[in-house]
C-alpha cells in the first residue's frame, strides 16, 4: 500500500489538491447551501474520475473496482444528503 502511494505520488497529490481546493470553495460558499451541496457532489464525481484514471494507469481497472468506487461515492453522497438535512 505504501509502495503504491509512493509510486503514484503524483496521482495522490492531484487527489489531495482537489479535496483541499474543494474544502476552500465550500468554505467560501458559506451561506449558500445549494452551492455547497453542488460542490460536494462535484468533488465526489471527480473522486470517481480520478480513481478510474488512477486504476487505468495501473492497468488494474475492472468492473469490480469501478463498482466499489461507485458504492463509496454513493455512500458519501447519501451522507451529504443527511448533513444538509434534505
Amino acid at each position, binding site marked *: 500500500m505504501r509502495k503504491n502511494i509512493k509510486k503514484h505520488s503524483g496521482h495522490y497529490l492531484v487527489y489531495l489538491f482537489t479535496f483541499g481546493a474543494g474544502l476552500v470553495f465550500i468554505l467560501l460558499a458559506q451561506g449558500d447551501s445549494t452551492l455547497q451541496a453542488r460542490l460536494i457532489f462535484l468533488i465526489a464525481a471527480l473522486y470517481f474520475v480520478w480513481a478510474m484514471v488512477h486504476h487505468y494507469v495501473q492497468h488494474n481497472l475492472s468492473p469490480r473496482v469501478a463498482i466499489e468506487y461507485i458504492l463509496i*461515492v454513493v455512500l458519501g453522497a447519501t451522507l451529504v444528503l443527511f448533513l444538509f438535512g434534505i
Partner: protein
Amino acid sequence: MKHFLRHLFVPHESNRHRARVLHHDSLLLIITFLFAGLIVIQGIHRQYPQVLGDSTSITVLQLLEYTNLEREANGLAPLNLNPELTKAAQMKANDMFANDYWAHVSPSGITPWVWIRKAGYNYLYAGENLARGFYSSSDVITAWMNSPEHRANMLSPNYTDIGFAVESGTLTGTETTLVVQEFGSPYNPNGTVAVNPSPTPVSAGELAALGLPSGSPSANVSGNVNMGQPSALNAEGQPQNPPLIDANALKRNISFAIIGFFLIILAIDAIVVERKKIERVFSHNVDHILFLLFILLAGYIIGSGVVL
C-alpha cells in the same frame, strides 16, 4: 459472537481478508438502509414536527443579555430592547424566508434601513448583524464578536437601542435558525446634539458602499407583529413547544457516526492487511479514507453557523 464480529469488521479468512461490511453487497445494503432511514425521518419530520422538528436554544433575552455583557465589558452603555427595532428585525427575517435570500440587501434592493423606517424607527445611526445555523445564543454572540465588522456594530457607542428576531425555516435550501440583530439610535430633530443629517450605518462590508433610502418612513406595515418578542418565543423568551428530537441534530449525528464507523473499519482493514502481509490485487482503503475525511470536513464546515 466474537467470530461473527471479526467476520464483519476485521479482515480474515472467513471474509476473504476483507471486512464483511466493506463487501459490495454489504455497502449496497447500508446505502439502501440509509436512504430508507432518510425517507422515514423526513416523513416523521413533516407529519409529526412536535416529535421530530427543528429546535434551537437561541432566545431574544439571552441575545440581549450577552450583547450588553460584551458592551459593559468594554466600558459601553447597555442597549435597550426597542419594539420598533424588534419589529424591523422580524420583518427582515420574514422577508429573507419569503424571498429565500441570505444578504443584508434583498434581491429587489431593499436595504435594512427600509425595514427600520417601516417599523417606525426614525434613526440617526443604524446597523444590522445577521447569523444563521447556530444552536445557542452564546455561539451567535461569540461569532459576531470574532468578526471585526460585526464586533464594530456590537461595540459601537453610536447605538442606544437594539432589536432581535429569531426565526426558524428553510433558507437557500436548508432548514436553519436565522438571527437578525438591528441596532439604532433615534434621530431627534429638536435635540441639542450636532448631528450628521444622513444616518451613518456601521455594518458589514457590502453595506458601506450602499446609498440610504430617501423619503419619510412608511408606516403601512401589515400583519400582527409581536412588538416585544418574536412570535416563536413565549414570555420568558424561550422557544414554544420545542420538539422531542431535533431533526437536524439527529441527521448530522447519524451522518457523522456512519462516517466515523467506516473510517475505523477502513483503518483496521488497512492496518491488518499491512501487518499480516496479505496480498491483494488492489486496495483502495487510503483513497476511501481520504474521501470520507473530505465528507466529514465538508460536513463540519456546512454545519457550522455563519454570520453576515
